[in-house]
């Protein structure tokens, strides 16, 4: 509707030579507005990926500027090293475990935060803080409370529940390292789910529930027919984002366990990092990066084909 009259009243500035060009002035302005984004995107995404791909075709010692062309040999090596498949598997365990836990906890927190009446603002702030504080602080606190010397969780686990021996550091144990990584990461990142779903919950008008109540719906029916459909679209998007982020997660794993003990918590990003800085094999590390990207790309396409989150979101608007 706006566009019919819009043409005539849209402002026209003084004469500029490109008014003579065969393209619309609006096109030029439009492209101009996204130009900074394009430049940043090229600089930070397209070039590095192209560079990584190019480097992955070479044999490069990290500290040596000489590149030796080896073609696809790095890829053959990646698929043959035993740690690759193990790391891929651990990465999938970490990704699926974390995402499911975060989805459950995040949704539950959002539903509760949306309904409580007293202290809502303060509690919401405390919950949100988990997402905003630096990961390193979460790691420092976690390392501290799971430390055998005066760590309160270590003590509780050992003395109250007998989960481990009083001398063990749970983060350094094969049995517990991965589970604790999932738990600690979820403490922080479940809030991501909460923020998005809480925003959606706040946007549901109260009259929907009042109307349902008048029609005799019970609470479960209200949840199923009003709340859930409104959340569905954003949940699909959030699951996609969280899965990708958890699969790519490097910081919290490196800070808590550095991939150890042994390789018990080495996921693909950790493997790539170790390959650059421990094995000094820059070309090989880039091959791992490219393979990682291809895996995610394939997984994302499958997810879009199965659920089509963007369409879901648009139809529920």
């Amino acid at each position, binding site marked *: 509707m706006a566009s019919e009259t*819009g043409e005539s009243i849209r402002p026209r500035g003084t004469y500029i030579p490109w008014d003579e060009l065969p393209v619309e002035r609006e096109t030029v302005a439009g*492209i101009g507005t996204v130009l900074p984004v394009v430049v940043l995107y090229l600089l*930070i995404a397209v070039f590095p*990926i192209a560079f990584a791909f190019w480097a992955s075709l070479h044999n490069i010692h990290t500290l040596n500027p000489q590149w030796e062309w080896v073609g696809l040999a790095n890829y053959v090596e990646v698929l043959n090293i035993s740690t690759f498949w193990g790391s891929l598997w651990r990465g999938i365990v970490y990704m699926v475990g974390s995402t499911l836990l975060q989805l459950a906890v995040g949704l539950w927190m959002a539903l509760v935060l949306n309904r409580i009446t007293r202290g809502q603002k303060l*509690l919401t702030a405390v919950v949100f803080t988990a997402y905003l504080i630096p990961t390193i602080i979460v790691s420092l606190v976690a390392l501290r409370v799971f430390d055998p010397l005066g760590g309160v969780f270590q003590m509780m686990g050992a003395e109250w529940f007998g989960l481990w021996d009083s001398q063990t550091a749970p983060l350094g144990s094969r049995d517990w390292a991965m589970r604790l990584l999932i738990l600690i990461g979820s403490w922080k990142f479940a809030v991501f789910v909460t923020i998005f779903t809480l*925003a959606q919950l706040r946007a549901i008008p109260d009259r929907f529930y009042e109307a349902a109540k008048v029609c005799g719906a019970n609470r479960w029916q209200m949840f199923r027919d009003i709340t859930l459909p409104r959340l569905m679209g954003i949940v699909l998007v959030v699951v996609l984002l969280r899965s990708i982020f958890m699969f790519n997660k490097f910081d919290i794993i490196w800070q808590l366990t550095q991939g150890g003990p042994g390789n018990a918590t080495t996921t693909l990003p950790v493997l790539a990092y170790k390959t650059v800085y421990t094995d000094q094999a820059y070309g090989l590390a880039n091959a791992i990066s490219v393979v*990682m990207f291809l895996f995610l790309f394939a997984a994302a396409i499958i997810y879009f084909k199965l659920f089509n989150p963007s369409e879901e979101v648009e139809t529920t608007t």
Partner: protein
Amino acid sequence: MSQSEPPGGLLGLSYDGETRVFEALKIVSTAIIVLVGAWPIYWMTQLAFTEYETVEGAVTVFPTPEIFTVGNFTVLTDPEMYTYMFNTVVVAIGTIVTVVIVSLVAGYGLARLDFPQKENFARILLLGYLFSPIVIGIPLYQIWRSIGLLGTRIGLIIALSAVSMPFAVWLMWKYIMTIPEAHEEAAWVDGASRWRGFRDVVVPQCRPAIIAAALFAFALAWNDFTFAQILLPQTDTTTFAPGILRAMGQAQFLPDAYLMAISLAMTLPPLLFAYFMQSYLLKGFQVRAL
């Protein structure tokens, strides 16, 4: 209460009975959230105010007067720690400013101006989420080194801005779409230029989206470890997260109580942000078609 009592819901309870169960569940849930959400922050705080000799040896629950101290906070004035925190603040502010300006302009362009392929452009932007910071960081190290941005705060700001960009642009685009174009048309009729319309009509109405994008960029910059670890190899420009990890590796003895004091100082800004900005933040994220 109501005239027509709804037929039994879950567990065959009446509406009021169901409400009571629901209230009870809500209280239990709130208690768990308080416990799980606030507990680590409480624990950090109490350790930060406890004498470090005590922290090393035993489990303390509350800093009683005989072990209470504010002495741990002297570590904040340590030149090394001060540098790390200063760098983090600079990087966070730089990232927020860059992200907000660039995404506002791009969001306006996507929402109001017509140019070919703009939908596809926005979709391709989202592909950026697939790149792990590690996947980008490793090649970026070489690229930044060859153009001289390695080890500079600007280099990190560019990297972090670009990472939060796709999301911020998307948010801004969808948010500006919800503002009626008639508001700007009214300004144009009065003789305002497109720039004036953008500045005086659109930007003020975008406040929730600006705050949401700023907070997202802040979380990313304040959180970042991976990029800073790879792109800031020197100590004097490095930010808090890799800095503190390196300091822990080098120092023979860096008491936990000190670490908690620093952590508390780094937690306060996010807590204040979360408290005062949450209504804007939630409003900004209400955009449905992400």
